[in-house]
Each structure stands twice: as C-alpha cells, then as structure tokens.
C-alpha cells in the first residue's frame, strides 16, 4: 500500500498512529507532530466512511492533535454522501479544537462537486499535503483556503 510514509517530511517523529478501518479496508493514518494525516484512497464504501468519521474523531480526542489533514488525492469520486462525511469530520474536529484541511482534491472532482451543488462551506482546502501542513502550522490564520 502506498501510505504517505515514503514521502513524509523528516523530523516529525515516527508514525505513532496506525491504520484505521475494518471490513478489510484500511485508511493509513500518520501522526506528524500535532497533525493527523489521513490518506483516503480508492473506493470508500458508505459504511466505511461513517466508521472513519468516528475513528478519526476518537483519534483526535485521544492524541490531542490540533490539526487534521485529509489527503483525497487518491479519491476519484466524491459524491454528496462522502462530501457530507468529510464536512462532518471537520465539524467534529472543530469541536475538539482541531482544524481540518482537505488536501489534493483532483480537478475533475472539484468541477463535479460545483455542478453537484456541494461546495463544502467551512472546509479549508489546500492543493497538496505539504501546503495543507503549512496552513495548519502557520498559526491561527483562520478561514484560509476555502473554495
């Protein structure tokens, strides 16, 4: 599997969080300092997406990270169900004092979401994981990167 570990920035310490998931499907999760990096790939069944929401929220509460980056560069379809799950993950993180950035949305997905009518208000976005990490570590500059 292609977790982000190969390209992860050095100096953030070892990945202390393991993969999330069940049902034979895993979502790689890395803890990089105060940030949780969640990498979504391929087909995410509805039940898995809901499980993921709960797992990430639990993980935020336990690790007390202050930021969450969800890398969706490997996701080729975001429909209103997954869109709602992503928005709810961000809302849950916010309540636990963590900010969420959605990283790496594919252009075709972005174009489709606009036409679908799902603009994900309140979800910060970044072009890639690196920029998402910068956004989260740059301080309390709220409201940046929204579409």
């Amino acid at each position, binding site marked *: 599997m292609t977790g982000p570990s190969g390209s992860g920035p050095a100096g953030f310490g070892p990945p202390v969080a393991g993969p999330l998931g069940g049902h034979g499907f895993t979502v790689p999760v890395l803890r990089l300092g105060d940030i949780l990096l969640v990498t979504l790939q391929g087909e995410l*069944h509805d039940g898995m997406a809901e499980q993921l929401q709960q797992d990430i929220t639990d993980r935020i509460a336990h690790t007390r990270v202050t930021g969450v980056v969800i890398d969706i560069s490997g996701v080729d379809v975001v429909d*209103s169900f997954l869109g709602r799950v992503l928005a709810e993950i961000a809302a849950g993180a916010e309540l636990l004092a963590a900010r969420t950035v959605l990283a790496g949305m594919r252009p075709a997905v972005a174009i489709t979401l606009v036409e679908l009518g*799902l603009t994900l208000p309140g979800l910060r976005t970044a072009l890639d994981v690196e920029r998402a990490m910068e956004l989260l570590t740059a301080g309390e500059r709220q409201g940046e990167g929204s579409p």
Partner: protein
Amino acid sequence: MRASRHAAPASLPIGSDADLAWVRQQVRQAAAELGFGLVQQTKLVTAASELARNTLVHGGGGHVEITPLDSGPAPGLRLAFVDAGPGIRDLDRAMTDGYTSGGGLGLGLSGAKRLVQEFEVDTRPGEGTTVTVTAWATVVPPARPGP
C-alpha cells in the same frame, strides 16, 4: 479511443454498499471505453453514485441497466436505475436542491440532473421509481501535433 468490440448492455444489482462501489467502477469503465474524458467520466460516475444510493436507500434496492450507445454520431452511455420501492409522491419537491425526506443532503436528484445531458424520472407511488440518465461523450478535436 473507441472500444473496438461492440459494447453490450449490462444489468447490475443494487442491494448493498459494496454494490454501489461496484456500480461506480463499472460505470467508470464503460464511460472510459466509450471515450469519455476524465471530467465527463467523473460527472457521470458521481451522478450514478447518487442515483444508485437513492435506489438502495429510498427505493429499498433494485438494479441498474448500463447501456452503451455507440451507433450515433457521438458515443453515449445510458443508465437506468430501477426499484420497486415506495415511489416519489412529490417529484417537484424531491427535485429541489436541499430537499431530503431524511438523512441526506438533498442534492442527489437535482445534482445528478445537472451532471448529465438527459434526465428522466418515471415514478408511481407504491410501485417504484426508474431514473434514466444519458450522457454523451463530447467529441474532442484531435490533439495538434506537438513541437
């Protein structure tokens, strides 16, 4: 490139989360074989995901018929989502952005309509619902010779 072999219609069951994922994959593959561009594929697969989920969640399950249309001037793909569920009592309301009878974002029907070229709903209270959509591959002019 157009698929050389003549594409045949297919019928896929919609009875579980896993079926939704399979429908997305099969629609993606059929659209790619017919020469749909990446954005067109993504739009159609997203519409299919929304409509298949409606078949599953609101219609109590059913099936989708996938019909490649490759005899006209431009290749197209027709998808018919069929269930024998409760039907849609007030179609105008169901087609309104944001209307949900519960749990969703209410963007499935209205959003799917925006993502395809042809959209038709045949629904009878107590008998079921069939939503048929068609998308045509835009004919892309051949690439100019590079330098």
